[in-house]
């Protein structure tokens, strides 16, 4: 593996390649964004002015050069559907997605590694098999379907069971509308709205991580040096900490890095079903209204997240595993 600095420059080159690819994908798609934005009877002059306003005039390479230059200066352009800079549109939705993504990733890793590690020590037992089957089923269930199921449970389910008002969870949005809350009340309102989306994301995320954590930990338990350590009478908890976890951690770190795209993109469905005002819902809205600058900006952001997660995973691996430092 190469030096951290060259990995960083690789990451920047990769980001540029993604930018170029997305630009081509969007610009080569059939249909002209300008004709969709002006009145049907607009004169050629008006269309021309709009082209200039949207940066759609000139040859494709010229447009690409202008767009890339603007992006490098941190200017993602104006949203076509919401007279606002793309940066503002993204900045409004970002905190909501970071909150959901961060909480569910932390929960997934915690529960996934705990369950997977617990299974690995009992590999082959009945509980292990049961948990594996359960995990496979949860992992297989599409997010949007689980989310719809939870909506039913939280609404009709709660009223059939006659749950008191405080135990009923809201299934839509991130805040109770028409309530001006602040401080602790606002936070607890956000928490209540987060329970259902987090449940879907954390359950499926944990099921995926547990699957791999179990495999990697079971392999670590089977290594000869672990057998030796056990035979020498070292306490199992010490063996786990000093000999097993350290070796099994590397694949888990890689997995967390690799599961980030899933966390980021998986929330598209969850945000859609629960009407969560995050990036995923913004993306779907932008796609539906053909808001090209927002689509481009969000895709770049997603790619930046994925690339930096991979980079971080690589750097953590370098620290964890001295054998990779060559």
């Amino acid at each position, binding site marked *: 593996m190469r030096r951290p600095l060259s990995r960083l420059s690789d990451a920047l080159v990769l980001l540029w390649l993604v930018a170029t690819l997305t630009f081509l994908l969007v610009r080569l798609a059939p249909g002209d964004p300008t004709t969709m934005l002006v009145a049907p009877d607009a004169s050629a002059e008006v269309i021309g002015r709009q082209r200039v306003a949207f940066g759609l005039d000139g040859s494709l390479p010229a447009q690409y050069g202008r767009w890339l230059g603007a992006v490098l200066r941190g200017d993602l352009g104006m949203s076509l559907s919401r007279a606002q800079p793309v940066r503002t549109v993204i900045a409004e939705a970002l905190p909501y997605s970071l909150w959901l993504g961060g909480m569910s990733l932390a929960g997934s890793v915690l529960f996934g590694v705990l369950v997977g590690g617990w299974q690995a020590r009992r*590999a082959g037992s009945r509980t292990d098999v049961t948990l594996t089957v359960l995990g496979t089923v949860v992992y297989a269930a599409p997010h949007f379907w689980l989310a719809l199921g939870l909506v*039913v449970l939280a609404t009709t389910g709660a009223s059939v069971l006659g749950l008191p008002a405080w135990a009923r969870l809201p299934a839509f949005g991130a805040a109770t509308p028409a309530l001006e809350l602040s401080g602790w009340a606002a936070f607890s309102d956000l928490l209540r709205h987060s329970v259902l989306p987090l449940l879907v994301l954390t359950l499926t995320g944990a099921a995926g991580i547990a699957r791999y954590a179990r495999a990697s930990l079971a392999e670590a338990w089977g290594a000869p040096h672990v057998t030796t350590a056990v035979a020498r009478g070292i306490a199992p908890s010490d063996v786990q900490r000093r000999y097993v976890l350290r070796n099994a951690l590397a694949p888990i770190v890689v997995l967390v890095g690799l599961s980030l795209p899933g966390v980021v993109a998986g929330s598209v469905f969850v945000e859609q079903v629960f009407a969560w005002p995050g990036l995923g819902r913004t993306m779907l809205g932008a796609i539906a209204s053909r808001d090209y600058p927002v689509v481009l900006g969000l895709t770049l952001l997603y790619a930046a997240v994925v690339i930096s997660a991979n980079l971080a995973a690589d750097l953590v691996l370098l620290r964890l595993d001295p054998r990779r430092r060559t």
Partner: protein
Amino acid sequence: MGAAAETSPVLPALAAPTRVSRRRVDKRLVAGATILGLLAIGAVIGPWLTPGDPIGIGDVMQTRLLSPFSRSVDGSLHLLGTDAFGRDVLGRLLLAARLSIGVGVAGSLLAAALGVMVGAVGAWAGGWVDRVLLALGDTLLAVPRLVLLLVIAALWGPGLPTVVTVLALTGWMGVARLVRAEVLGVRALPYVEAARALGVAPTRLLLRHVLPNALGSATVAVTLGVGSAIVLESGLSFLGLGIQPPSPSWGNMIAGGRDWLLTAPWIALAPGVALVLTVVGSTLIGDAIGAARGQSVKPPR
């Protein structure tokens, strides 16, 4: 991957039969094959056995929103009930199985073919060809697959051909990486050098001698890829960017049942269960193949 390193890439063909016959057949393989087999049989013959037209809309007021196991006025039994347009849910479910499984299999097979081609060409050609192909793969891997699918499907017009194409275009990178690594490994083996010394042409050497030994790990990836392709298709169709109604797909059936969640939950429940079963089935088969090849931990006994 201790077990994978111990088995030489040349040996499995000889060793495999004895291993299979001595060990019990992997339960996961049996379970997965049973699930997928039953679904496939249902998909082929089901739509002829279920009552009514699964696509067209008949006498809506007489037959709409019947609950599971109930009979409609003409006496035909609706095992999974009917939807808001009075169509038999089971019939639509099984018709959708044709499309959903078909799209998943076609998409991931095309992706696999593309991946094998890119991986083999890159490893075999080396130099700038390899670097360009690697960069292209890395670029596509840097964007979440769902985002790519959404953008392409939405901008280039939703529909069956688009879905299959984008599934293929966004799914080949993993296979390409595996095949590239294996081709590089196999290429260094003595028998390849021997074949080259005997005067086998490069293309023939790649196709006949190297590739067959380099495809093993890709088969697992493809088997697991079918499941994720089916889920992605259902997601696109759920959002209205995949298979368009009235053609049924599990995803757009769930979307259609969304408005009736409280009064007729079976409309959205049934296709979801079918989706879960399909993905579990393909995961089980993928795991079993992986375990047999020593690619993951030993199966629980």
